[in-house]
């Protein structure tokens, strides 16, 4: 049983490595991993790898990260041989001398486990310094990298992926809001119950699904560096369009422009390009003033069934009081207010600008939207509780 305990300890260490690489591993999964290891040959690296992968990976996209962690954690020299040879060679100096092998199957197996474990422990021993896990690759890189870091020629590929992810998410949400035929379907179970005393069905019970779509209002900062992020957000949300009742889009830098009609046509892509034309180049961002314009002219678009998304870095050249006041007015009427700040993707960023500091307390959700992974996550917040 000592073996089992050591395995557990080793797995907890491995779990920490996985989590550090962004894999959401639960303790329950780690316990399953321990049980899984008891089912395989611990001396066979390929088997240990497959067993752990089966238990700890839960979507295809996690596989590359898992592979890297496994390589890093289980580091015995592959050149010494793949399975038994390499493993024994790597740990021989410490593991085997004190405990001469006991006879019989059980003893041998126990020893195997112990030898293998020495290796796991090695990984765990370096807890202080983070385990070195090699860099990311291809698709995964596309998911995690900030939009602004992609070279121009790769942007099309990223845009394609954005739409693909959005469509997959749209299916997930849209179905449960699907309209049903008038009156819904007959619920036989409840009809039977209701008519039990009568001997035949006189009164039909029906059921239908509720259908309540959420409206979206987007306020996109298109000044300077925000432009690129706005484009990806727009692309993403428009691919999700059929999930929402209506999407209203405004851009702002120093003044507010409504671009909903522009984006509604079939040639949506070229419309996105034309966005540049409506941009005002006068420099500086007046978020507060733009929001005030919105509240005054378009305030009727916002009600309890509306989610308002503001995408901006919060660099406001106007008065923070105005911004705070307008945000409050928005928050009072909207179902939910989400502020997206791509700078949040940078771990060292703190929302200290005056504008951001003023707006933050009035925001229901504050997120990054700087890469594909964060856009995907955003979709989960686009509901009104």
């Amino acid at each position: 049983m000592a073996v089992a305990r050591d395995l557990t300890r080793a797995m907890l260490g491995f779990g920490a490595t996985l989590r550090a690489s962004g894999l959401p591993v639960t303790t329950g999964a780690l316990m399953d991993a321990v049980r899984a290891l008891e089912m395989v040959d611990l001396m066979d690296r390929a088997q240990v790898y497959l067993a752990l992968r089966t238990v700890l990976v839960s979507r295809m996209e996690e596989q590359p990260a898992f592979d890297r962690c496994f390589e890093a954690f289980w580091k015995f020299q592959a050149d010494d041989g793949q399975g038994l040879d390499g493993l024994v060679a790597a740990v021989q100096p410490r593991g085997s001398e004190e405990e001469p092998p006991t006879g019989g199957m059980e003893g041998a197996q126990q020893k195997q486990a112990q030898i293998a474990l020495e290796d796991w422990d090695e990984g765990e021993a370096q807890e202080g310094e983070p385990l070195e896990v090699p860099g990311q690759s291809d698709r995964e890189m596309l998911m995690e990298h900030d939009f602004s870091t992609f070279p121009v020629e790769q942007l099309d590929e990223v845009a394609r992926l954005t739409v693909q992810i959005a469509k997959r998410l749209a299916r997930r949400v849209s179905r449960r809001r699907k309209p049903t035929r008038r009156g819904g379907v007959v619920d036989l179970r409840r009809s039977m119950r209701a008519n039990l005393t009568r001997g035949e069905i006189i009164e039909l019970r029906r059921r239908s699904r509720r259908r309540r779509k959420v409206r979206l209002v987007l306020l996109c900062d298109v000044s300077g560096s925000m432009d690129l992020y706005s484009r990806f957000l727009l692309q993403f949300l428009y691919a999700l369009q059929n999930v929402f009742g209506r999407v209203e889009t405004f851009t702002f830098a120093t003044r507010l422009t409504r671009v909903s009609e522009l984006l509604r046509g079939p040639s949506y892509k070229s419309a996105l390009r034309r966005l540049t034309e409506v941009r005002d180049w006068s420099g500086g961002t007046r978020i507060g003033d733009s929001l005030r314009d919105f509240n005054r002219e378009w305030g009727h678009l916002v009600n309890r069934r509306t989610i308002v998304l503001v995408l901006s870095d919060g660099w406001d050249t106007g008065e923070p009081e105005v911004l705070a006041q307008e945000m409050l007015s928005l928050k009072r009427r909207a179902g939910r207010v989400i502020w997206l700040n791509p700078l949040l993707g940078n771990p060292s960023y703190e929302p200290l600008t005056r504008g951001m500091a003023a707006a933050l307390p009035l925001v229901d959700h504050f997120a990054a939207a700087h890469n594909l992974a964060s856009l995907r996550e955003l979709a989960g917040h686009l509901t009104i509780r």
Partner: protein
Amino acid sequence: MRAEIKKIEEMMEAAEYVTDPAIAMSVHLAMTLKKPLLIEGHAGVGKTEVAKVMAKMLETSLIRLQCYEGLDAAQALYEWNYPKQLLHIKLEESTSHSLTEKEAAIFSPPFLIKRPLLQAISETGTPPVLLIDEIDRADEEFEAFLLEVLSEFQVTIPEIGTIKATQPPYVILTSNRIRELSDALRRRCLYLWIDFPGFEKEVRIVTRKVPGVNERLAREISRFMETVRTIRLAKVPGVAETLDWAQALTSLHADHLDEELVAETLGCVVKDADDVKRLKRELTTGGIARFVAAQS
């Protein structure tokens, strides 16, 4: 290699399923850890087959729940046999049975229609294999409901009581990734991603499943398919297409690929008008050599 896993591989091969270590391992763990196994992959890579082969190996029954849009708990779990109940009430009209007695009669097991989930739970004897096919087609609410059933393996029918599985079934879920599945469901399951087969595996599949195909043709077909899958098509062909094509070519008594033959039979490989055009263009520019060039 652990004997059990070796045995699973052998049994899968014996059941005409060309396997690899990853598939064998996940089946082994699903059986020993008694956890549901979620299998994802492109259409036509043999996800459903895994469950069928597993049932065959365990010599137990396969209970299949095909998911579709709008599938709800009643259709998956149980339903009362309403026509039979109605008829029974009619027949009982003239008797002197009390209402409670009538009610007890029509809400008793003979009037219960067991749907796949209840069937799998109430099965006595060897636990069956429960295949929940294409879970991504079902709605999200159904997924949540399924999660509940999968964690407890018990079902409460208000009129009868709670039915608990004496031995939980082996559960296989498949998904084509039409829709994202919830993290909760994923966490509950073991996971297997089946990719398109590599060259060697596909050659094995072709020679195994298409009688009369010769070695050279099988290799050329597999190489061709490998190249086709690197082209960005609307619908990437799966193993099913490979087998269709191999079958067609063999019945034409072909023993190798040439341009004319490929052009004539391209409909077996890609089934989308634009894809056919695209592939034809690639074939005329690069020639067949490009597709089977890497042949060893």
